[in-house]
């Protein structure tokens, strides 16, 4: 809860900074503030408290995800210094990002549909704007427009779902709904199930799983790279946290309604995302499909054991976030010189700038799930959970698609190491270099201390 307050406060402070001419120091302050938020999370760890008439529930799940969101956001700010430096509106952008983070934290800790809805909307509305924040670019506009239109369309379904669930259970509180469901087993009106399904659709849209993923590649590609990085990390984490919270905390006892559908969605996601990525030529787009693909793996863990998979999902997301941020940092560096992110511009990166290439390699290997990187352990845990619960066929599918994944990740790697250098030389700033090293080290460290991360969220 404290973290949420700190973040909201920071957002407002960022707006005020414009007025009091404090712009220069803003990034530092924001980062300090995020660190502070992280520390409060660390202090709150282990407690499980309801806040404001059970609007928010801060248990270990929320703490862990909040921590992850805050840390990811922190690294994102580190990464995005360029983005702020080159743009005139540092304060409002920072504020929007911070509001988004606040929305994300809410999505990780809500206990009430209203909070879910508001958190989601804060997040989304800020993102619509951020996606379009490179106004001179048609791509950016298109991304914002697509994101907005489809996002609000999906919101309609979410609300419809909430309304129906409310109508059936008479409450917006997850805990109450859950207990209502378990006490009225078999007597629930059929529109309750329709509501659950509509919410499922809306959340699947938010986590961008097939067939509700269409917005993601386009938006990821069109948005400014830093924003894409933000979307594919913080936003994704938040969306999945929200998804998990609703379906594992609240609707788990009516799992039968949607589990088959979710299985189909998982299969489709794994196949379509990974296969489609193969023929892409834009690294941003590849990463977009890759992030969709990763959702497939997370869903696999979820359908295998929804209640017990929190630790796995958390670890998976952590590993994914670290790798993804690294990858986007490199993409951003390449883009800042070449103005484009097609694979050709990664040609010979290893010769041009080994650090970027190596960091990118680690990130991609981690995303591909190659040991001993964190991504492997993430995938491993997913598969382990699935095998434990008898989803061996799905695991085989997962393995096949992850091989396809290797194919497209390695397309970039091959370009970096194999092809002759093209385009201008690259000189990332020192802070980016340090960031890359830190993130890579984190990625490696995660695999060494995987135990710690997994045990953060005990199965409830």
């Amino acid at each position, binding site marked *: 809860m404290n973290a949420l307050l700190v973040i909201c406060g920071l957002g407002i402070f960022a707006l005020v900074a414009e007025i009091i001419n404090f712009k220069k120091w803003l990034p530092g302050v924001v980062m300090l503030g995020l660190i502070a938020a992280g520390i409060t999370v660390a202090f709150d760890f282990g407690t499980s408290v309801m806040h404001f008439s059970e609007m928010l529930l801060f248990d270990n799940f929320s703490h862990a995800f909040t921590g992850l969101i805050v840390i990811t956001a922190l690294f994102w700010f580190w990464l995005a210094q360029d983005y702020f430096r080159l743009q005139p509106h540092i304060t409002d952008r920072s504020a929007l990002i911070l509001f988004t983070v606040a929305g994300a934290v809410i999505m990780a800790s809500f206990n009430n549909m209203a909070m879910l809805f508001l958190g989601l909307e804060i997040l989304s509305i800020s993102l619509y704007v951020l996606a379009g924040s490179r106004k001179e670019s048609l791509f950016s506009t298109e991304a914002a427009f697509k994101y907005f239109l489809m996002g609000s369309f999906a919101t309609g379904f979410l609300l419809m779902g909430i309304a129906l669930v409310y109508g059936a259970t008479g409450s917006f509180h997850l805990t109450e709904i859950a207990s209502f469901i378990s006490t009225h087993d078999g007597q629930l009106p059929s529109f309750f199930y329709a509501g659950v399904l509509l919410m499922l659709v809306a959340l699947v849209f938010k986590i961008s799983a097939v067939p509700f993923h269409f917005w993601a590649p386009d938006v990821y590609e069109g948005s400014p790279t830093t924003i894409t990085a933000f979307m594919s990390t913080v936003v994704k984490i938040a969306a999945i946290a929200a998804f998990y919270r609703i379906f594992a905390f609240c609707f788990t006892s009516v799992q039968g309604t949607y589990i088959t559908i979710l299985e189909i969605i998982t299969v489709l996601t794994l196949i379509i995302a990974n296969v489609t990525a193969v023929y892409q030529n834009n690294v941003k787009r590849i990463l977009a499909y890759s992030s969709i693909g990763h959702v497939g793996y997370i869903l696999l863990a979820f359908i295998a054991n929804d209640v017990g998979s929190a630790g796995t999902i958390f670890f998976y997301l952590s590993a994914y976030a670290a790798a993804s941020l690294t990858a986007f940092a490199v993409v951003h560096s390449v883009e800042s010189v070449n103005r484009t992110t097609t694979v050709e511009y990664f040609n010979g990166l290893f010769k041009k700038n080994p650090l970027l290439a190596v960091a990118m390699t680690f990130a991609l290997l981690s995303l591909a799930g190659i*040991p001993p990187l964190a991504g492997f352990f993430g995938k491993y845990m997913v598969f382990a959970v699935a095998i434990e619960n008898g989803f061996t066929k799905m695991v085989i599918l997962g393995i096949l698609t992850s091989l396809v994944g290797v*194919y497209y990740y390695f397309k970039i790697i091959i370009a970096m190491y194999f092809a002759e250098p093209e385009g201008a030389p690259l000189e990332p700033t020192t802070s980016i270099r340090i960031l890359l090293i830190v993130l890579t080290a984190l990625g490696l460290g995660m695999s*060494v201390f995987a135990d710690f991360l997994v045990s953060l969220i005990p199965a409830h």
Partner: protein
Amino acid sequence: MTVFLIFFPLAVSLVLFLVKPLQARVWALIASLIEMIASFIAVSQFVSNEAVQFSVNIPWIKSLGLNFAVGMDGITLLLVLLTTVLVPGIILSSFRRQYSKPATFYGLILMMQMALVGVFAAQDGLLFYLFWEMALIPIYFICLIWGGTDRGRITLKFFIYTLAGSLFMLIGLVYLYYQTPGSHTFAMEALYDAGHSLPAGEQGLIFWAMFIAFAVKMPVFPFHTWQPDTYTVAPTEGTMLLSGIMLKMGIYGVIRWLIPVVPEGVAAWGFTAIVISVIGIVYGSCIAIVQKDFKRLIAYSSIAHVGLIAAGALTLNPLGIQGAMIQMLSHGIVVFGLFFIIDIVSQRTNTTTLAGLGGIRNVAPKLATVFMIVMLGSVALPLTSGFIGEFLLINAIFQYQHILGAVAGLTIILGAVYMLKTFQKSMSGEVNRTTEQFADLSGIEKWVLYPVVILILLIGIYPAPLLEISEPAVMNLLKIYSNLSASVK
């Protein structure tokens, strides 16, 4: 000791990556020599029994049942020895070339060494898998960065292919893991117990899941198509690593992680696997006969040899497994020598096509002699290292099934056919325009090749000490196997 053997190369490789010293290759050579000496010390301290020695066991990820458990018994020790002996040779062999980014190159080689030693030493299923995959990364980059034409596509195929295989092994391991009693664990013994308590059908499935991984790595027909291209395209040092050591991972896997784990699976499917391997022998040999490229020829011959080793190991006969052990050493050394010779030839003539060579023996008698001896090792002439292994292996296969043994025995004929052809086409005859300026062995080349020759002869003449190292462990493994299969029945 084991920990040192695993992490010392890693540490040096990290130093190389970070410091990027000018004389990276010297550093790497010294490091690998230290590693070699360390392994010799390990051999000298090794007590000749079946116990796992120098072992270390630290919990790593408890929630995954993953322990950092390493140790060496005789089987491991022999392969570690092979690794630590070959790597200095590989590094030394690279001294003739100037690779761009040498620090990275040698760092990757040492990293590879770490992973290889780790694979052989791991006493924990998941740890084994981790090292197994870790070995793939350095070699991939070695091939990708310093390889030949079209390496992007070929190395990717190699990577995905081997990864595909090993992921199925992972499924098998995880499945076993969930069969372990209590809070699950990946400890080797526990996996053995878990494996043998499974019903026969499931054991069969796990057998295939794991066998395919090993078969791809070795590679055994028909999982081999990545291999000739990769060997051809990889830089020589990479090819040496691949064929000299990495290939042995697959066989080691069969011996350590397949036979004792799923005895009934082996009983049910071993025959099929052996048949496949034996087909591979003939198939690989036949294709080798019609190869026009030196490197590809050796690549296919490797398929044939490894098929023999795999088939022998799967016979569950002490002769077969011991034969596999000694043949792994022999093949590692021989193939290292062969690829180095190919490299010398190709570097001086810019071709590896046999048709373009000839008459080298006139101008480079030392090279020709060395090649001759290495070739003899390859065709398993008695008193060279190749013979004992092939003899034991054919023996084991013959005992398993007479006809298969006879077919496997064809390797000694077909092997002679293609190796002699190769020797003749490259070395004998009159010199031609490409070979008339051919220089004989230089200092470094001698330093690499003479030990190879000596080792080939030494192992051939007096293999008993080496076999004694692994004997107790092999017998123990078979005892576990027979106990398991007996208790099931």
